């Protein structure tokens, strides 16, 4: 009998199920971790970048009534009255500040208008307000008479909005709802600068890491291990310590400047710290291991006979390196480059500490919007764009280099 009996088949199935379950249990902790620490926050971030219910929750009735408004003239007095009543309520429960912030983002200058109006209407009589609200509101500030103000309220009242993404790429809606360039161009320039700096850092780590990894792969195990300690040393020191060391070196009265002055090369300290230069320098130092490690792992696997074979066939050493060794070490080089590039695009601490105003990268602005300006929606939009940017770059990398060419060890 070569075929399985039903009993055998059932046994085999049960064994396979058990193996699968075991395999699954091994990865469960990681899956849970990824779900809670990665998938959930990123989903929230993506949602947050388009979802803004604040205004809709503060003045729901006004917004409902504004739906029928043509947008060109002053809204119906009933709407204006409703707004005046809402203003008083917000002034009473101290939410007028949030309302002012939200409207101010859509129409600059509105913050003070709304705050003073709220102060003015706080003590108004309810009955009088219901009867005469429109006049009272218009009397508080003449900007209430402008259709632009109401358009701003209406657009800020949208629960789902693309305006944060537009802001993130320096665009905005004008009065007519058309997409136009913003007066201040910040973010596009910042993204370009971030990419440029990441590219420079990747290039520098390649330049420094490739020869080192090559030497280590050719050296005796003792020498290679010794050098490896130096490569890994930065990993064993706190990131803050390493960055602070750069501050000590580069500041106006720091080691580099004092040495140069002492040597008579310069008369007064040159600005080395708090600019792009110091950010790139410190980040290259910090990210170098991410380049060296995959390169070394790949190069160690390349036997010296390949180069020898190429040279014995008449190729000069540089030609042999270019045609033979480089393609063979490419998996390590591209893995290292991808690691360094992606890490540096989203880097935060080092630019924050040594970057000054010049050396800020996109993540510093995201942090600014989260911590200082409290504009979480814009921070989420900027972060999502960064994520999309990295995915696009990864896709391009896959198209032109191929991710099966990646080798981390």
């Amino acid at each position, binding site marked *: 009998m070569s075929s399985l009996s039903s009993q055998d088949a059932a046994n085999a199935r049960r064994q396979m199920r058990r193996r699968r379950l075991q395999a699954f249990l091994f990865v469960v902790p990681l899956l849970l971790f990824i779900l809670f620490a990665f998938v959930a926050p990123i989903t929230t971030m993506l949602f947050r970048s388009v979802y803004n219910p604040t205004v809709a929750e503060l003045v729901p009735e006004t917004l409902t009534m504004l739906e029928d408004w043509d947008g060109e003239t002053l809204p119906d007095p009933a709407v204006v009255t409703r707004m005046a009543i809402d203003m008083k309520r917000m002034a009473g429960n101290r939410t007028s500040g949030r309302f002012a912030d939200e409207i101010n983002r859509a129409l600059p200058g509105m913050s003070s208008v709304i705050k003073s109006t709220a102060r003015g209407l706080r003590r108004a009589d309810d009955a009088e307000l219901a009867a005469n609200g429109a006049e009272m509101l218009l009397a508080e500030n003449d900007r209430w008479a402008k259709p632009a103000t109401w358009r701003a309220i209406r657009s800020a009242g949208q629960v789902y909005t693309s305006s944060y993404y537009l802001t993130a790429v320096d665009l905005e809606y004008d009065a007519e709802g058309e997409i136009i360039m913003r007066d201040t161009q910040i973010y596009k320039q910042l993204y370009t600068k971030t990419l440029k700096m990441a590219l420079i850092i990747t290039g520098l780590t390649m330049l420094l890491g490739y020869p080192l990894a090559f030497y280590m792969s050719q050296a005796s195990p003792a020498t290679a291990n010794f050098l490896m300690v130096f490569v890994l040393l930065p990993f064993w020191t706190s990131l803050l310590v390493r960055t602070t060391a750069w501050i000590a070196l580069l500041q106006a009265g720091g080691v580099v400047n004092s040495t140069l002055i002492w040597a008579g090369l310069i008369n007064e300290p040159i600005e080395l710290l708090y600019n792009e230069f110091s950010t790139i320098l410190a980040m290259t130092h910090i990210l170098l291991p991410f380049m060296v490690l995959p390169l070394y792992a790949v190069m160690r696997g390349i036997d010296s*006979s390949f180069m*020898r*074979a190429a*040279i014995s*066939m008449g190729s000069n050493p540089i030609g042999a390196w270019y045609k033979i060794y480089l393609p063979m070490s490419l998996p390590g080089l591209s893995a290292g480059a991808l690691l360094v590039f992606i890490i540096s695009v989203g880097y935060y601490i080092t630019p924050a500490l040594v970057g000054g105003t010049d050396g800020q990268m996109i993540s510093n602005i995201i942090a600014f919007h989260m911590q200082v300006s409290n504009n979480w929606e814009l921070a989420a939009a900027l972060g999502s764009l960064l994520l999309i940017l990295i995915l696009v770059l990864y896709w391009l990398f896959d198209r032109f280099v191929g991710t099966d060419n990646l080798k981390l060890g």
Partner: protein
Amino acid sequence: MKDTKAETFLRFDNVKKSYDQENLVVKGFDMDVQEGEFITLLGPSGSGKTTVLMMLAGFESVTSGDIAINGKSINKTAPNKRNIGMVFQNYALFPHMTVAENLAYPLAVRKMSKADIKERVAEYLALVELSAFGDRRPGQLSGGQRQRVALARAMIFQPTLILMDEPLGALDKNLREQMQFEITRLHKQIGFTVIYVTHDQTEALSMSDRIAVFNDGVVQQCAPPAELYERPVNAFVAEFIGENNFVQGKVSQIEGDLAKVETDTGTITTQTSEGLTEGAQCRVSIRPEKLFIHPTTHAHDNALTATFVTRIYVGDFIRYYFRLPDGTDIIVKVLNDLSAPEFEDGATAQLLSLTKDCIAFAN
């Protein structure tokens, strides 16, 4: 070897190599190679044979001495200017190139035209019987096929000589024999000069015109295979090449090429070797297949009395283990035919040999 030129093709002149400024790895290597010869450097690992090869290829510097091709020293020639083809143990085929691109590489480096390259590659692919495999990557080939590609790549630019560094080391036994045949065929057909490094003596014996046996940085003997096997000049070569039995004894008399050696089990008449003196202790080597067990129809000059220990059935022949009174083990190989005798445990036997098969070496 067809027409031996007056001038030597490749000459090593007292070549020495030291890595650590203290010890010599190669101690004064001398050798003359004629064009078209197949020379094998044979020796245990660490004997310096690979170092000689690397110095010839230019990947190691020569500490002192001179290596010359056609009378011109190549000591200072860069490895890529030496025009020497090389086959490595791991083949060193470029994994990111196809077989055809691998073969084209040395030609492209020489700036040959595309059409010529294509033609030459096709020719050499046909030569190693891999015409259908030009578009494959080395990773898709079997070990033997990779070896053939490596051979073709080393030959395709028509180098002045071809070096092979244990090229068959990574192959299994059957493939290895096939490739030995293949290399010999190509060598005969094209007539290139080969310097071949191996630690496998069967390989060396079956392929080479001459074999240089290395030990401890010194060439012990450089001779054609048959001479190396039949007439080893010292005990190391006798022991290293093939299997051998050694019988301890004392030289009682030397007469021309012959010596009489007193052993525990009687006197043996042997061939002499260099350094042998009357009255000195010596070792007599006798190959296992040159010993015959009494009774036999073979003629004989010497007889040893030994105790039977065991016999091992190998298949095509049978190995007998005997012990001499002084405890020395003696192996005898007998063809597995009707004449193969049976013994009781502890039985004594007469082991017979010819004088020409016994060589005495000074201890």
